[in-house]
């Protein structure tokens, strides 16, 4: 863990549900650039696949969690109409992707304990590529419309997100000696995994470090390859109690730790006291303690990676290496699934798999822990997802059922 005791943020106070909940089904809608489908159709596709994966029937789903902040939401009526069912569905806005892909199990555990639901779907689906083609706003809108950013950042060209993270990356390079090759190692390892993954949008576009370095800058010091894709797609994850999970066909994947951290400067990256860190500093230690693990115990790590630099910082802030040393830590092929080091974003991440904001990262961990992954890590027992939104980070520790 990092030796510093930072005061620029804080940990969220979440209930400890370690050992209570399990993931029993995962489903991913087909990932595409323009799909011609709206977010509701994509969501239902993902849910259908997750239900089949779990060995459940559509009428057995009685909880639906989504994020009210990002993407469209699926109504209970749309679910029932599609599947021709009549059940009551507990609806929650404490789920979705980004940080909530990690923290969704907490509200689900409460609903299950209180008898309001038994099998809960956590869902995230977007049609952002199709929206972009249609001239829509996409993921930059939130920042552009935030009033202080609109007044003191957007007029000066400090917008959209690639500009924020290029500025952070340059400072990280100056503070810690991080090199273009280090950012490249993140991008290249994601692409390497994506080329072996049947679902990944960039599966046909291999990328070497030499090719990465030869690519033009988009927002210097970031290249296009340092930035996430924009895509249509969605994922669904089915949560239930560990006891119930043991009756279902797939080996349960147990939620062993959940935590979240906040930056005291909110979504104003420009003003965060530690400019080159993420709130994982506050989140990861709590989740690891709940699970009784250290970073060294983690077999596979998936990180919310809108930009290569965000992954690099989270690797440091979660304690996989000391602060500032992620460059040497990720260099070469140390992030590959089949080499010594840390198996990282084994599906390709937001950089190379699809831009579904972390739901596919959790689904990938489940497949790894079941032994079903395309880039399967050997003897995979503990998987960790790091979620991020800028002002928040979250940590989810998953383990094989004992």
């Amino acid at each position, binding site marked *: 863990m990092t030796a510093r005791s930072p005061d620029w943020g804080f940990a969220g106070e979440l209930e400890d549900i370690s050992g209570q909940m399990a993931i029993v089904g995962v489903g991913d809608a087909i990932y595409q650039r323009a799909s011609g489908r709206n977010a509701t159709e994509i969501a239902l596709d993902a849910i259908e696949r997750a239900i089949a994966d779990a060995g459940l029937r559509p009428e057995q789903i009685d909880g639906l969690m989504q994020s009210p902040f990002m993407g469209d939401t699926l109504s209970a009526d749309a679910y029932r109409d599609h599947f021709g069912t009549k059940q009551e569905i507990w609806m929650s806005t404490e789920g979705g992707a980004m940080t909530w892909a990690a923290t969704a199990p907490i509200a689900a555990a409460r609903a299950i304990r209180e008898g309001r639901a038994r099998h809960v779907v956590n869902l995230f689906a977007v049609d952002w590529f199709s929206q972009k083609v249609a001239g829509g706003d996409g993921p*930059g809108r939130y920042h552009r419309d935030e009033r202080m950013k609109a007044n*003191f950042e957007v*007029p000066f060209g400090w917008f959209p997100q690639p500009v924020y993270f*290029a500025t952070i990356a340059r400072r990280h390079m100056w503070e810690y000696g991080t090199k273009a090759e280090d950012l490249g190692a993140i991008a290249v390892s994601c692409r390497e995994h994506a080329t072996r993954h049947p679902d990944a949008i960039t599966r046909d576009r291999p990328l070497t470090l030499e090719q990465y370095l030869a690519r033009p800058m988009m927002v210097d010091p*970031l290249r296009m390859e340092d930035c996430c894709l924009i895509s249509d797609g969605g994922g669904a994850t089915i949560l239930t109690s560990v006891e119930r999970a043991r009756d279902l066909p797939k080996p349960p994947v147990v939620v062993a730790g959940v935590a979240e951290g906040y930056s005291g400067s909110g979504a104003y990256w420009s003003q965060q006291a530690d400019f080159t860190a993420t709130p994982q500093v506050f989140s990861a230690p709590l989740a690891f303690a709940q699970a009784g693990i250290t970073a060294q115990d983690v077999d596979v790590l998936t990180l919310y990676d809108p930009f290569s630099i965000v992954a690099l910082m989270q690797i440091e802030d979660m304690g996989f290496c000391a602060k500032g040393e992620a460059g040497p830590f990720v260099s070469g092929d140390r992030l590959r699934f089949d080499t010594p080091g840390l198996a990282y974003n084994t599906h390709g991440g937001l950089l190379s798999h699809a831009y579904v904001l972390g739901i596919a990262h959790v689904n990938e961990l489940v497949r790894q822990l079941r032994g079903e992954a395309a880039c399967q890590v050997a003897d995979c027992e503990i998987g960790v997802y790091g979620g991020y939104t800028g002002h928040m980070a979250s940590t989810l520790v998953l383990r094989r059922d004992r």
Partner: protein
Amino acid sequence: MAAPLPELDWPLTRPFWDAARKGRLVMPRCEDCARHVWYPEERCPDCRGERISWVDVSGRGRLFSWAEVKHLLHPPYEGQIPYVSGLVTLEEDPRIRYVTRIVDCDPADLSIDLPMEVVFRTLTFRGVAGGVRAPVFRPARTPARS
């Protein structure tokens, strides 16, 4: 004004743009604890004091970090590419990072901690009527104090 021009009549930030029009850079400061409050807030984040007043600052600072935008990512910026946008810390209180355009320089000559100084320019955007006089920064041409 239409985005991406700022709102000139928002009471919380209006003094900033009024001063800029006259070629002055001002920052909100807590009268109780003397902390500069950036971004503007109605209460001091340190002492919770409500007496915030706008004071002139030197317009000197140091380059904290920057990005060189080489690809059009937001349509109103068309015609400005490439440009440099970044953060400048102010001499009066280096905790303040002022988001700004970096002008009058070759990006290859920039370095972190480089002394900077304020200049005033009119910001305009393709397809948006009007413009706004705004403080931006360039590498300092006069030697920094201390």
